[in-house]
């Protein structure tokens, strides 16, 4: 694939401050990778470059593309998440006493909190995180817990994920960490928070260049402290900012692009941006009304089956036109996690394989780390630890990959790939640091051939030929049940959902459903008025009649 005109400019320009507005499906990752490769090709030293991503998945993808394009694994620039960067910096710049800190995982956080209080640890952690990242005030009781929690961590030399960034910023502010990079590239800039923003500015050399990529219309993490205003204020912060727009959409057919473009203009906190479809018009967006969540699930099954043809023997009598879709080409998106439960149950019972975001990522990660620890405590192996052996080859020959399933092997191998230099022990430590930063989102089995069941939040960055949006009802979309409900963010969430679809977008709303212990009737989402009707086709589902007697002439 070649870069288009604007992608090429974005990749090759050396402007001091560059902001690339990259809407959905416009080849953002591709362009960032091209930029990294370009910088290397014009002779910039790898250690001068840092590319910061929002997820490890994106980092791995970029790293692999750089590796393939340059045909070398060594001497790569830093490509990774903010957490990983912070980890590396802290391990390097913290004083001897502190630098061998351990990461306080979610599980450990919960343990510590549970030892302090009987209250729900999840909620406490949430409050503390918010407090540490965004300031504000904590109620007295939580503040007490917070102090004890911090004390406990200090005793055990633990840093939680928030500490990683805060500590890094501290070291930047007290000049322990100097500006290190002359080229900093930031992906998904719309989801950045203040601390991350300060870190970026702190690691950038005075004569260096900063390129940020993102789309304010896809900022959906304000509940984690990210602030869309940082993006919107960029032109004010950097007077000589160059704004560039990647406008060509490679993903979705024209109807979906036009409809979503129009829809998002209802928001005020945004940059106006252009997105033009490369693909021709396909079907209109389908809108289906159903009775309740059960009929919703059944409708999804019916629609999937009608695109796959028959999937079991009990239906062979229906002669259906088949196309080339397969399970992984479908996704069902909802606003809340709960809605997915019914859908999952129905699809599974219908024999349709599904995949969801796994929430036990930490259990998995700790079991892998335990295995690695067991491995290196073996006598014959401990001798190797100080030698220069590539981690990848070490793990590969250790047999560790044989004990876990294919998907997990793939993730591990992808991460391990870039570890091939230095003492084995050091590599293992860095590898474990990186593993601990894996989020459920990073572990989503994208390659598994199954229907994806996702929330809008977790669908970010993914694309599917056929997308169902379920629960298109006022209250759920926009989600007004929440206390800190923000209409513009809700609009962005729906925009993210819509723009996952490549060929078909099917939106379903139910006349009534079970929410918070009650069966309630909600009207269709008010967002419907913000999508021009010319892009929508309303489909009624016929009430179930007995199957029309087959025409048999004998």
């Amino acid at each position, binding site marked *: 694939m070649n870069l288009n005109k604007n992608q090429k400019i974005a990749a090759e320009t050396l402007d001091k401050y560059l902001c690339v507005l990259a809407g959905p499906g416009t080849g953002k990752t591709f362009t960032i990778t091209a930029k990294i490769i370009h910088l290397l090709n014009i002779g910039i030293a790898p250690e001068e470059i840092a590319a910061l991503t929002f997820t490890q998945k994106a980092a791995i993808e970029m790293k692999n593309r750089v590796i393939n394009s340059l045909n070398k694994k060594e001497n790569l620039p830093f490509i990774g998440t903010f957490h990983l960067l912070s980890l590396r910096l802290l391990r390097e710049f913290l004083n001897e006493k502190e630098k061998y800190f351990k990461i306080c995982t979610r599980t450990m956080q919960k343990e510590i909190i549970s030892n302090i209080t009987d209250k729900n640890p999840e909620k406490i952690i949430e409050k503390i995180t918010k407090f540490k990242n965004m300031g504000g005030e904590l109620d007295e009781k939580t503040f007490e817990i917070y102090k004890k929690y911090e004390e406990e961590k200090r005793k055990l030399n633990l840093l939680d994920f928030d500490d990683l960034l805060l500590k890094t910023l501290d070291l930047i502010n007290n000049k322990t960490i100097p500006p290190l990079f002359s080229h900093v590239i930031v992906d998904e800039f719309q989801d950045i928070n203040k601390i991350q923003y300060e870190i970026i500015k702190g690691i950038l050399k005075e004569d260096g260049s900063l390129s940020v990529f993102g789309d304010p219309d896809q900022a959906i993490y304000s509940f984690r402290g990210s602030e869309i205003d940082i993006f919107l204020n960029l032109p004010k912060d950097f007077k000589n900012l160059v704004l560039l727009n990647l406008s060509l959409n490679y993903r979705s057919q024209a109807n979906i692009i036009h409809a979503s473009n129009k829809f998002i203009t209802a928001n005020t906190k945004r940059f106006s941006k252009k997105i033009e479809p490369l693909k021709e018009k396909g079907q209109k967006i389908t809108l289906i009304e159903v009775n309740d969540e059960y009929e919703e699930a059944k409708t999804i099954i019916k629609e999937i089956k009608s695109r796959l043809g028959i999937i079991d023997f009990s239906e062979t009598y*229906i002669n259906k036109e088949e196309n080339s879709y*397969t399970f992984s080409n479908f996704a069902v998106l909802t606003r809340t996690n709960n809605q997915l439960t019914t859908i999952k149950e129905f699809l599974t019972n219908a024999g349709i394989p599904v995949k969801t975001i796994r929430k036990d990522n930490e259990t998995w990660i700790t079991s892998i780390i335990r295995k690695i620890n067991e491995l290196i405590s073996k006598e014959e192996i401990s001798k190797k630890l100080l030698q220069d052996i590539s981690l990848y080859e070490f793990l590969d020959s250790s047999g560790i990959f044989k004990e876990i399933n294919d998907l997990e092997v793939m993730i591990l191998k992808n991460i391990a790939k870039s570890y091939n230099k230095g003492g084995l022990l050091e590599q293992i430590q860095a590898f474990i640091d990186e593993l601990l930063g894996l989020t459920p989102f990073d572990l989503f089995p994208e390659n598994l051939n*199954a229907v994806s069941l996702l929330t809008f939040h977790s669908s970010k960055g993914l694309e599917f030929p056929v997308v169902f949006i379920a629960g298109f009802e006022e209250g759920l979309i926009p989600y007004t049940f929440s206390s800190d409900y923000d209409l513009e963010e809700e609009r962005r969430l729906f925009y993210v959902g819509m723009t996952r679809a490549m060929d078909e977008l099917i939106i379903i709303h139910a006349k009534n459903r079970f929410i918070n212990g009650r069966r309630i009737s909600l009207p269709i989402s008010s967002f419907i008025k913000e999508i021009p009707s010319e892009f929508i086709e309303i489909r009624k589902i016929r009430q179930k009649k007995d199957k029309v007697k087959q025409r048999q002439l004998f």
Partner: protein
Amino acid sequence: MFYADLHIHSKFSRATSKDMSLETIDQWAQIKGIKVVGTGDFTHPEWLKEIEKKLDEEGNGLLTLKKQFRLEVPESCRDKIYFILSSEISCIYQKNGKLRKIHLVVLSPSIKDVLKINHALSQIGSLNADGRPVIGLDAKILIKIILDISPESMIIPAHAWTPHFSVFGSQSGFDSLEECFEELTPYIYAIETGLSSDPPMNWRLSELDRVLLLSNSDAHSPIKIAREANIFDTELSYKSITEAIKTKKGFLGTVEFFPEEGKYHYDGHRVCGVRLSPKETIKRNYLCPVCGKKVTVGVMHRVELLSDRKEGFKPPQALPYKSIIPLPELVAEINNSSVQSRKVFDIYMKAISKLGSEYEILLNKKISEIEKFDLKLSEAIEKMRLGKVIVEPGYDGQYGKIKVFGEPEDFNIKGQITLFV
């Protein structure tokens, strides 16, 4: 020498009879006259629990029903039945830009192996929903996964020609074993020919000279068990049976349906009542003369397309086979009643009690002895053994019709659009 039917389904598969319990399968295997029968559905957790509860592992890779579970069987055909752990997996995936739906039969040597396989598969798809689970994996990858954890297991492409769910199927299959299994093709030792094809049709593909042609019933109800089967001359053990499949030594041949009776022998549209011969289909550009949509291309047509030999070619290593009509169907024809009727069932059971198992009657019993039981039946069986049958081919999911008495035109009951060339 013994007969074995390696592929059936339990009550936990879709569209199967709720009578498909281990007890009934054991009972009907005896009535039918086979010695080895597949358990079916070992991937289904509940069915596997029943297997563990009701069967004993014999130490030779086969299992038998515990005494306390055995059901009454006429003395004439009473026998000890051996189960072989078997299952069928539906792989639905995309390859080379096309949706593929391939059914694979899996044979396994022990419950231990089965548990490992099930664990691996449960990570990929749901095993609870259907005894024949849908797994979104490339058939080749599935083979790799299974053989990695259970090297003695064997994978056999099921009903290899069926349009919708098979390796050569017209709707979502491949044009060769290589295209589907690539470098793992050598691990495909056998294919199931399915009801709608018989060995001579498969002999027309030189690609298949290497593999063994198996026949199983794929039964969804007890009475359909052993409508096709395999003839072995080996020890009774998992190892001997799979060795015979790998080496063809100790494999004597198959018991077959008349392929025309199968559901997909010809092409056509069941809903429109249109049946077409392959030639007629080509002439009509694969379109249904009634609705104008594409017709379902059947087994004979696919053989025609993929074969590299003329009709009638017989490779030197070809094994013998015997074509049968299920005894209940013969009884039904003679008595002019429906196969499902009480009357037919009673006469059938009487024949079994007097003469022996169904296979004994259809394949071995002297005509003179059957004559003593029922003259008309002996005539019918003689005609069947000689292949003197009248058939109207099946198409698009509609079983073919088969008769031993009467004339072909008897079939053409008013108005059917049949387009023969």
